[in-house]
């Protein structure tokens, strides 16, 4: 009986998550069709989609697998630049259209997954803050390498160099990635629809993974590594699965992101971007996919809506961040909010809420 109820509850919860995304997409499309949306919001749609995918994928590592990763932007970067090269390469074969974008996103995912394996293998030997600092280090290494990467395309195919554009030995052709300048003249293939589909895909992968045997093993490792090990779960393997899947999804989001701007530099994917994604995840509630989606969307829109404040914009953003963290996490404020809530609630609901609170409390672990 309990099992069935639990199952239906997760299915219901997943359906709500999909529903929110689909409804939000349809509403936005309707508003755009009715010309009721500002330029600035339309311009934000693709970045929001990319950040939502990033938040969902990081949630897999931070929330579901329980590892603090501070280098997630590195995978986004790998995906962005490998996707760019792929677009330039396949543009001539399949034309600059949705198919080209699809190929680029897939290739970006593959490259990011490879980077995920390469980084994940050593990283998974570590735990806690040591793991966090190593992911930070890898993020910085990726940025530093990309700052020195030159890629060109001519009739002879792709050329790579770690020195300079001249060292590519190009005969005509086009330089695709030029060190710190990054890439320019990117075909803008990304669209809100593409972003929407990628969010659905990311959600599908992550939610299915969470609700599978593998996902339960990953969460078992998070909740109690030693207990999980003692029942025969291969700890490193499951941690690695979560890490690599997350990296691949981040790479795909990176490709989507890069194809929305006509220029992109390696500098963009630095520590601050990693932190930004982490903020989405933490604000949305760790392990709470839906919360992460909402947080990513809101926190991308917020600084833009604060533009009227001018110079004080980022200061207000910082204060909002601090206040929201305190309000959502301080026990006293929460209990005051809870009392407030009770007044407006019928008795029957009250019990359910208490039960839910108890479950939530129980989910906390040391």
């Amino acid at each position, binding site marked *: 009986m309990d099992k069935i109820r639990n199952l239906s509850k997760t299915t219901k919860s997943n359906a709500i998550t999909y529903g929110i995304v689909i409804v939000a997409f349809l509403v936005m499309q309707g508003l755009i069709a009715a010309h009721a949306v500002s*330029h*600035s919001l339309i311009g934000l749609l693709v970045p929001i989609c990319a950040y939502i995918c990033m938040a969902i994928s990081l949630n897999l590592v931070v929330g579901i697998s329980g590892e603090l990763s501070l280098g997630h932007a590195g995978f986004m970067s790998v995906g962005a630049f490998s996707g760019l090269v792929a677009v330039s390469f396949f543009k001539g074969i399949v034309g600059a259209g949705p198919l080209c974008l699809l190929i680029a996103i897939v290739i970006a995912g593959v490259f990011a997954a490879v980077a995920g394996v390469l980084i994940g293998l050593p990283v998974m030997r570590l735990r806690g803050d040591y793991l966090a600092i190593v992911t930070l280090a890898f993020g910085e290494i990726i940025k530093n390498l990309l700052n020195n990467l030159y890629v060109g395309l001519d009739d002879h195919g792709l050329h790579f160099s770690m020195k300079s554009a001249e060292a590519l030995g190009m005969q005509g052709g086009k330089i695709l990635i030029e060190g710190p*300048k990054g890439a320019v003249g990117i075909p803008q293939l990304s669209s809100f629809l593409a972003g929407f589909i990628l969010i659905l895909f990311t959600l599908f992968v992550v939610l299915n993974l969470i609700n599978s045997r593998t996902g339960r093993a990953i969460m078992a490792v998070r909740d109690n590594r030693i207990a999980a090990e003692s029942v025969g779960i291969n700890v490193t393997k499951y941690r690695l699965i979560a890490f690599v899947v997350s990296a691949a999804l981040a790479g795909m989001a990176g490709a989507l992101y890069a194809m929305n701007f006509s220029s992109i530099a390696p500098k963009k994917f630095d520590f601050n971007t990693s932190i930004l994604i982490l903020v989405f995840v933490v604000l949305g509630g760790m392990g709470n996919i839906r919360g992460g989606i909402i947080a990513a969307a809101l926190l991308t829109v917020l600084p833009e809506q604060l533009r009227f404040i001018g110079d004080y914009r980022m200061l207000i953003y910082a204060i909002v961040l601090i206040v929201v963290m305190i309000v959502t996490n301080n026990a006293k404020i929460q209990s005051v909010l809870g009392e407030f809530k009770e007044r407006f609630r019928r008795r029957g609901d009250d019990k359910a809420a208490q039960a839910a609170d108890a479950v939530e409390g129980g989910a906390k672990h040391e």
Partner: protein
Amino acid sequence: MSLEHISRRGFIKLTGVAAAGLGLSACGGSGSGSSSGSSAAGAIKIGGIGPITGATAIYGNATKFGAQVAVDKVNDSEGKTVFELNWQDDEGDAEKAVNAYNNLMDWGMQILVGTTTTTPCVAVADKTANDRIFQLTPSASSTDVTAGKDNVFQMCFTDPNQGEKSAEYIAKKKLGSKIAIIYNNSDAYSTGIYNGFSKAAPGLGLEIVSTQMFTDDSATDFSVQLNDAKSKGADLVFLPIYYTPASLILQQAKSMGFAPKFVGCDGMDGILTVEGFDTSLAEGLVLLTPFVASADDAETKGFVEAYKKLTGTSEDPNQFAADAYDCVLAIYAALKDSSVNASSSNADICAELLKTFGSGSYVYSGLTGKDMTWGSNGEVSKDPKGVVITNGKYESLD
């Protein structure tokens, strides 16, 4: 570290309220933004984009204030053309720059002065080319900014051009023959100049004996780079970098007793205005800059005074500010006798400005150059001024 669940109940509640608020304001913004150029004051709306927060805020703020000084000057002159400036922050980031651009479009921007830095500028230039907004950037110096776009023009030298000009200047003035270069390989501006310089130098009889790099993340200690230059016997160190790291290099070179000739580019301008800087460190420093704040002409003096008044500080404007000032005034000079006014569409204004800027025969003299002209590719043609720092002041080398 243990990662626990964070209460989501409170968060979702909060986000709900915030979402409602943002949704409302988003819709409100769209209503006022759609009709461009209906400003009651009859001012032409000039948008500006540049970093006013973040690590590159110095340059964005300089361009912002420089442009504002020019706009005030235009409006005080009581001609029939009046400007209104709206400057938006991009934090030096392409994504934020596009956001800022869209925000300005909602406001009803008709002309864009910006963006200040290169990568964001390339991203925005694509948008302006589509939307037919005339764009004049004060300081985004990569050739990619203007490439393939007929509506984008630069007020600054392009990076490779500046590299070549610097090499020519060093060779012509015989400033040195064994050259060491220290550049920032995480920065497009610095790498661009370096590439131009290293290509041109061998043909001019200059020998590059040491090439050393640093990144934004390691821009504190330059002892290794300087030691390499010293041990290779360099008599001239070329610094195609901004003045903030350069001031550190000069100080560290002095403390290790290394005294070659230092040569910088336009990014070096401003080093004397750094508050608390020991100007004796910069003694003998040669830099190629289009603008000199201590120049004696009335235009420069008036600009410096107005700039200080506007910012409320005693610091002299640097060349970024002067470039932005020239941008606004060059646009004003091209527009003031034309038929366009505040109710013209941005496409009409763009077409009108292309008639002058794109003609190849438009000549403008401003703070950053006499008789500047623009090629059809959008690049400016002007002569750099070589200056040497003597007794804490710029002195012309020409």
